[in-house]
């Protein structure tokens, strides 16, 4: 019983200690002129879908959930957002060359088609980010249209 108490105490201290470690927050009020939505000006339903299902990890501004205040959840999020933005940042869209836009669009289409995006670990909590089959089709059709206009 004594050992158990010690272990609990150590864990408790560790848990408390990591709460003080800083995390980088992905937040910005400015939407740059290069943003996908500003450049392509898609219909309202498309913008809503993109903002709800993609922009948290693929733009410079994340709408954080409550548990981002608690470690180690915050680290987990930070990691995902960093990775997501490195792959594709919708805010930087117009800075990509046509060649790269083409590659990104192809990946967007394939990932939505194969249900790889949005990530299941993300939709687990963000239920409104889940794309219905109809929404998937709407997005894919729109992205295909933009892709074809590049070629």
């Amino acid at each position, binding site marked *: 019983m004594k050992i158990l108490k010690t272990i*609990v105490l150590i*864990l408790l201290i*560790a*848990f408390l200690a990591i709460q003080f470690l800083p995390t980088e927050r992905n937040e910005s009020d400015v939407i740059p002129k290069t943003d996908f939505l500003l450049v392509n000006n898609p219909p309202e339903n498309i913008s809503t879908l993109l903002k709800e299902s993609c922009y948290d990890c693929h733009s410079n501004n994340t709408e954080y959930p409550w548990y981002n205040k608690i470690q*180690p959840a915050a*680290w*987990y999020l930070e990691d995902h957002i960093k990775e997501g933005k490195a792959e594709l940042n919708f805010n930087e869209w117009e800075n990509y*060359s046509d*060649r790269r836009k083409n590659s990104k669009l*192809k990946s967007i289409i394939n990932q939505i088609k194969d249900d790889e995006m949005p990530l299941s670990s993300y939709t687990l909590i963000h239920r409104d980010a889940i794309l219905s089959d109809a929404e998937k089709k709407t997005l894919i059709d729109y992205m295909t249209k933009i892709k074809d206009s590049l070629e």
Partner: protein
Amino acid sequence: MKKVKVTTAILAMAFVSLTAMSCKDGKKENSEDAMHSEMNHDEMNHDEGMNHDEMTVSNDSMDSNAQTTDAKQVLADYMTLKEALVATNKDDAAKAGKKLENTLNGFDVNSYTAEQQTELKDIIADAKEHAEHIGKSEMDHQREHFKTLSKDMMDMVAITGTENTLYQQFCPMYDGGSAWLSMEKEIKNPYYGSKMMACGKVQKEIN
């Protein structure tokens, strides 16, 4: 007593997730280390080839066929990748993808004109992403990325030229029609492998 149990459970969960996190970080560092050492290794190779490279460039800088060592290595890595896809070998393809990513990272474009440099940098940036994904994906994804990567390679060759004859080959069945480059005339399909090995035709001979 019940309280203690609950607290223990909560803390155990926190601990497990923490451990998972630190494991993940640890792994990452390791792979980064591996990357570093590989990169150093590559840079060394690169240095060895350097003198030769500069000589070639200064000798025939006006010749559009002056293919630099870097450009040659990129193509060689691409061909290794293609062979792995023909053999439907995911692990070899991943390895080749990582190798190609490294080579692209060290691609020196200084011997080209400003306009060519811009174009090449764009091609390299794009190809690097495809190579990176091929390095960590399943076969079907590897092939998807290989298609766009092949386009990048064709555009690169149009700038860098090639010393060996290349064959641009085309399979009309894969993803609405897809091309790739090969050193041999004979068709060995990287998009289907043994499923449809001979599907395709030579579209163009590049000298």
